[in-house]
């Protein structure tokens, strides 16, 4: 311990701390002045690549802390399918950060301006594209899988790529009998029918034996003889009555034994009748499955307009659903868990009770909420103004629009997020673009709706069908598109697409002359047609519908011709099946009919006879008892009268 006096006068400011603090502030300032923008640029490029799976480039990131101003120039997002192009290019994005909100640790942008929008612009070098992630086995079916799995049934799915080939080969299929000749060994139903026939023939023999075990006419007559021989009235002594009752009971027991045999037989019969019905159902199923198998083998093309439409437009619609799946996956990855669970079709997980030992929580007190006169949500971009105009140097899209209220808390501001954009891309021949979208999270269940309309755009070299048997192509067409959709709670969806194809000229080629002629005749008269698709329902079980007026017109053209052929095939198959299985089936029928009806009636007859015999025995026993009772009563009366008479005599009356 020291008592050394130190009388050196020092001030109250800790200068030794001020200097390092100042240095720290200067370094911080220098960082933000010289390095921050570069790091932010790299961060956006890195984050963008991670989030979108394709290279994102930022030309320049400029920020000013004092002015709260940010400017990002030349944002390029690589097109994952064509890396030499950008899927989107933005010339400039500018915004000012609200300092008042920032002091409250909130990120608020009052107005953001996005200018110079280009689609599919050329890149200076091909962009990097991340490899697709491995499929998640726990993931539910995608929109694409549901479109391919539900819009098209099994047969159409197998042959959807080759509908022309199917039609052609079906139409030219010659002698059906010859093709059906060798089906014998392949019919499962025949094998089942043979097995059943053997089973029920054996059963019938078994039943012949069973029926012989039943009481015969002779047995029943012997019961009758025994029955008639038992006294049942005019008893003289109680011993006679007792003997008669014992005889009746013995007879009843013998009858009961026979009844039991009959009942057991009857129960067996009922269960066999049920087995017959089950076997019949099995046989019918096998016959149906054999008929379907034969139809598949003959590649019977689906003749309705819907199936035509699905076969024709499957490859055209698939890229749309693939995009939808891509955005769904992205949303699942980046949305807060509450919403991504909804996209999974899962219910919100309820928080599990924490059963670990917790320290005693410090008193939390009451946090008072005073009226908010100037409050902000954590994140809020109030407006994004989209204004993009073509100029002499660059052909930007001419777009104007407004995106409002992108926020982390819609309930606080009481406004929903909306998007309203319209415009055109002259260089790409796209005009009449109108897009509206709204996301409402103010209500307890969030909802979203969108409506995208493209008044006119050109499509080139659209392959509807392209196979070895022929092709249907549309080299050029003028189209319009309307896609509308809505979702409630990200659980149920209602999305519809209407695509009008105008000024269409088909390029047709088919190997088979008959098909080629029909297609030429039909399609040359069709200048326009539509395509309508809808996806409705819960995400894991969507109802997918595809229809097109083109399908209807093709159905009409091929309908009569194909229907005639289909009827012929159906009749032939039916005849062949009947021939192969009908005989065995009629044998089974006769065997089972005997079991059901003949043996059934025999068992019932014997049972009835035995039951009536039993009832008669019961009646006789009752009668015998009553007779004895009457006799006893009259005997007592006589004895009583005699005693009275004797008493009178004794008393001298």
């Amino acid at each position, binding site marked *: 311990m020291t*008592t*050394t006096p130190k009388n050196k006068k020092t001030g109250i*400011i*800790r200068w030794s701390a001020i200097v390092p603090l100042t240095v720290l502030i200067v370094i911080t300032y220098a960082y933000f002045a010289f390095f921050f923008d570069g790091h932010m640029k790299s961060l956006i490029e890195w984050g963008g690549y991670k989030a979108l799976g394709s290279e994102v480039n930022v030309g320049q990131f400029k920020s000013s802390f004092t002015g709260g101003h940010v400017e990002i120039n030349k944002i390029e997002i690589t097109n994952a399918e064509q890396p030499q192009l950008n899927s989107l290019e933005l010339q400039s994005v500018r915004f000012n950060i609200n300092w008042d909100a920032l*002091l*409250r640790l909130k990120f608020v942008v009052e107005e953001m301006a996005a200018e110079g929008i280009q689609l599919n612009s050329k890149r200076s070098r091909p962009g990097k594209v991340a490899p697709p992630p491995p499929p998640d086995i726990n993931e539910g079916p995608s929109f694409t899988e549901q479109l391919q799995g539900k819009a098209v049934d099994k047969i159409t799915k197998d042959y959807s790529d080759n509908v022309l080939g199917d039609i052609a080969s079906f139409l030219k299929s010659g002698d059906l009998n010859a093709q059906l000749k060798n089906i014998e060994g392949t019919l499962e139903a025949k094998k089942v029918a043979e097995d059943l026939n053997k089973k029920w023939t054996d059963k019938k023999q078994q039943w012949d034996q069973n029926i012989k075990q039943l009481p015969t006419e002779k047995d029943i007559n012997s019961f009758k003889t025994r029955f008639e021989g038992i006294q049942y009235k005019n008893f003289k002594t109680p011993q006679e009555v007792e003997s008669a009752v014992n005889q009746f009971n013995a007879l009843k027991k013998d009858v009961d034994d026979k009844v039991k045999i009959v009942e057991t037989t009857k129960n067996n019969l009922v269960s066999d009748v049920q087995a017959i019905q089950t076997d019949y159902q099995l046989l019918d199923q096998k016959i149906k499955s054999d008929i379907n198998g034969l139809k598949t083998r003959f590649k019977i093309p689906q003749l309705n307009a819907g199936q035509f439409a699905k076969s024709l437009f499957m490859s055209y619609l698939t890229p749309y659903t693939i995009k939808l799946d891509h955005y769904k996956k992205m949303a699942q990855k980046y949305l807060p868990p509450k919403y991504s669970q909804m996209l999974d079709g899962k219910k919100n997980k309820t928080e599990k009770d924490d059963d670990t030992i917790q320290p005693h929580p410090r008193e939390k007190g009451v946090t008072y909420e*005073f*009226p908010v006169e100037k409050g902000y949500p954590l994140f809020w971009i109030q407006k994004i103004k989209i204004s993009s105009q073509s100029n002499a140097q660059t052909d930007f899209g001419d777009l104007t629009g407004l995106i409002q209220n992108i926020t982390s808390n819609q309930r606080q501001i009481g406004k929903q997020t909306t998007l309203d954009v319209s415009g055109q891309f002259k260089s790409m021949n796209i005009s009449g673009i109108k897009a509206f979208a709204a996301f409402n999270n103010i209500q307890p269940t969030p909802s979203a709706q969108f409506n995208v309309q493209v008044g006119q755009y050109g499509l080139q070299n659209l392959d509807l069908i392209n196979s070895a048997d022929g092709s249907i192509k549309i080299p050029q067409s003028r189209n319009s598109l309307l896609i509308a959709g809505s979702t409630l709670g990200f659980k149920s969806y209602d999305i519809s697409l209407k695509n009008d194809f105008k000024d269409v000229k088909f390029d047709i080629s088919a190997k088979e002359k008959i098909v080629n002629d029909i297609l030429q005749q039909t399609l040359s008269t069709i200048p326009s047609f539509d395509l309508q698709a809808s996806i409705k329902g819960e995400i894991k079980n969507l109802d997918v519908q595809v229809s097109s007026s083109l399908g209807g017109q093709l159905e009409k053209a091929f309908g009569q011709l194909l229907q005639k052929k289909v009827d012929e095939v159906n009749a032939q198959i039916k005849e062949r099946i009947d021939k192969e299985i009908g005989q065995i089936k009629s044998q089974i029928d006769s065997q089972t009919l005997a079991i059901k009806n003949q043996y059934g009636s025999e068992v019932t007859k014997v049972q009835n006879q035995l039951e009536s015999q039993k009832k008669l025995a019961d009646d006789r026993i009752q009668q015998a008892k009553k007779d004895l009772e009457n006799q006893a009563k009259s005997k007592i009366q006589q004895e009583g009268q005699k005693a009275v008479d004797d008493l009178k005599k004794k008393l001298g009356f």
Partner: protein
Amino acid sequence: MTLLLKQLFNFIRLLHSENGTYQIVWGLTLGAFLGFSPFFSLQTFLILAILLIFKIQFGAAFLSSFFFKFIAYLFDPAADLLGRWVLELPNLRSVWTALYNMPIIPYTRFNNSIVMGSFVFVLLISPILFLGFKTIIIRYRTHIVHRFEQTKAWKAFKATKFYEWYMKYDDLYGTK
């Protein structure tokens, strides 16, 4: 940790010197504010900034804040009642509303009953604490330290070579 220990040793050394009474007293008083304030709050950072800028004894402040954290914990129910009373005063409602809508101020969490109650309490007792700490330190130095220095054991220890070397080292490298 080393820095904290160094500050505590400095505090003990300063306590036993004849200087720096106010440095210690302010440190102990501001430590009480730290103890009664929530850790992540604006007032905590303000007090830390004051401690950094002015020559206030860090060790005393940390020791005091550690001690008053426990007191504050026990005082919570009472602070809750006091805070509720203050925050519900009709005359002050407009003041609270204005503060609530100001930037930065809400980071003090003044609208919480315990934070407000603790703050009001420590503010009220801070003059008493200041004077109390001052008195205690002076009395400690004049009575207890003096009496201890008169003991034979201390005198014997002071006569050792080890003590001589320690004093030399302290003269050369010791800091406040």
